[in-house]
């Protein structure tokens, strides 16, 4: 964790390393929040054991930072995270979840709920970095109240053995969101399920997936937009297959329950162009360096 000084919530294995409350921001463990705030209980899936509770009540201009790490072999985290953003606030959040070594054989399960109150804006960058034997399951639900805005990017550039991402978004009147999932999957079994529900009039959202399959990876992504009212949605799924032994399966699904809704999708899976690869090698890059650069560019385009 580079910005340890400013981190708001820092957990290693099951221990809290640091909690820092900026002005107008309440930060607790979710276990303490369960005890302290009765009203918050309804947002938890069950009584939490670990994880964070962040309640942003006032505008803070510094970005909020969370870091949940694993440092000990065979650690199994089971987190429940809750973030509540009050009305009219505009917040940047960077969340990091990682293993400190590549060989820890650990597990990281997270049930998260993020609530954006009326006219609030959240820019959330969620970065995952794991070892080759880890099993990781981030399961997040976002509730976007009237006219709120979410820009959420999930990045996994060092992927675990198994990665199961479940993301649910509920957009109410006039709310908008931009969900991006960028994953460079190396020897990984990846399962992605995401649903964007356009619940009320004027909701607007986009899902963008950029998935790279390398070294015996299996990727399956099922992305869904459900339009329940007059609303707009777009689904953009792209896969890049690097080697013969990987597979990518993209299943975009549109469900329209309102005649006034407009939802669209595009999906494609491609390979690296031989010409581009040869061009970069003729600039002195090895084959692997050239592939890495092309992959970086592909993922960069998703941002």
């Amino acid at each position, binding site marked *: 964790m580079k910005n340890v000084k400013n981190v708001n919530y820092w957990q290693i294995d099951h221990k809290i390393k640091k909690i820092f409350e900026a002005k107008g921001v309440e930060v607790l463990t979710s276990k303490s929040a369960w005890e302290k705030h009765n009203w918050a209980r309804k947002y938890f899936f069950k009584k939490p054991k670990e994880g964070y509770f962040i309640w942003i009540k006032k505008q803070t201009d510094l970005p909020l930072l969370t870091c949940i790490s694993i440092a000990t072999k065979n650690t199994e985290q089971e987190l429940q995270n809750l973030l509540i953003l009050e009305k009219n606030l505009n917040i940047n959040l960077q969340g990091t979840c990682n293993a400190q070594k590549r060989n820890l054989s650990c597990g990281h399960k997270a049930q998260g709920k993020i609530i954006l109150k009326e006219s609030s804006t959240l820019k959330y960058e969620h970065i995952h970095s794991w070892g080759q034997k880890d099993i990781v399951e981030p399961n997040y639900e976002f509730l976007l109240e009237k006219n709120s805005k979410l820009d959420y990017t999930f990045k996994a550039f060092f992927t675990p053995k198994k990665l199961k991402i479940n993301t649910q978004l509920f957009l109410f009147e006039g709310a908008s969101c931009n969900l991006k999932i960028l994953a460079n999957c190396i020897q990984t079994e990846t399962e992605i399920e995401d649903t964007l529900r356009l619940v009320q009039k004027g909701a607007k959202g986009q899902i963008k997936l950029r998935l790279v399959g390398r070294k015996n990876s299996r990727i399956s992504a099922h992305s869904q937009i459900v339009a329940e009212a007059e609303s707009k949605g777009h689904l953009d799924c792209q896969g890049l297959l690097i080697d013969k032994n990987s597979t990518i399966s993209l299943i975009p699904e549109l469900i329209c329950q309102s005649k006034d809704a407009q939802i669209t999708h595009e999906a494609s899976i491609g390979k690296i*162009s*031989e*010409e*581009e690869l*040869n*061009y*970069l*090698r*003729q*600039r*002195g*890059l*090895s*084959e692997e*360096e050239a592939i890495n*650069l*092309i992959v*970086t*560019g*592909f*993922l*960069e*385009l998703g941002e």
Partner: protein
Amino acid sequence: MLLEVKNLKVKGNGKEILKGVDLKINSGEVQAFLGPNASGKSTLVQVILGNPKYKVIKGKIFFAGKEITKLLPEKRVKLGLALAWQTPPAVKGVKLSQLLEKISQRKDLQFEEGKGLLERETNVDFSGGEKKISELLQILALKPKLVIFDEIDSGLDLKKLEKVSKIIKKELVAKGVSVLLITHSGAILQFLKPKITNVMVDGRVICKEKDFRKVLKTIKKYGYEKCKKCKLLAN
């Protein structure tokens, strides 16, 4: 001798494209390669740079005293070979500045002309002229000993061509870097005055001439057909 190509025969897509090509370039020398479309010029330079798409069925390539016929492209570049592509492919999502940072062999690269391109994705929506500048910039970053320019004069008006030629003269020729100009039109030759002009037709070098004006004049007047019938055929 910096580059020597000996009796090179090459196949691509099962078809013989180069049918026994010989070429010698000394350090600091400027040479040109003229030829009609599909005569094998671009294939020759791709093979010199090691494009795996083509199969060398006979002959050898030497560079800086080392045989490089089977060497990987990136290793040839490390030895000092460089090619400026005629139509470079787009590298989506990668800014030119990022690419330069990855490939650069020098820290002192100053190049006013390319500044506006640095923050753009490499070759994405570049105009013809911008592509040439981008190629030049990358080539200079590689600190090469021999640069091959594949149709650097195509799609450039006379003014831009003069500008590009000045850069090549100042940054490469004046510093003792060898230059091989592959050209269909020959427009650039008046600015860079090659020591030897090779003519390639149908996968063979059929003429090596010291006076590029003479070659250009003949081709302009009679086309490459006249070259084929010329009594001074090199082969």
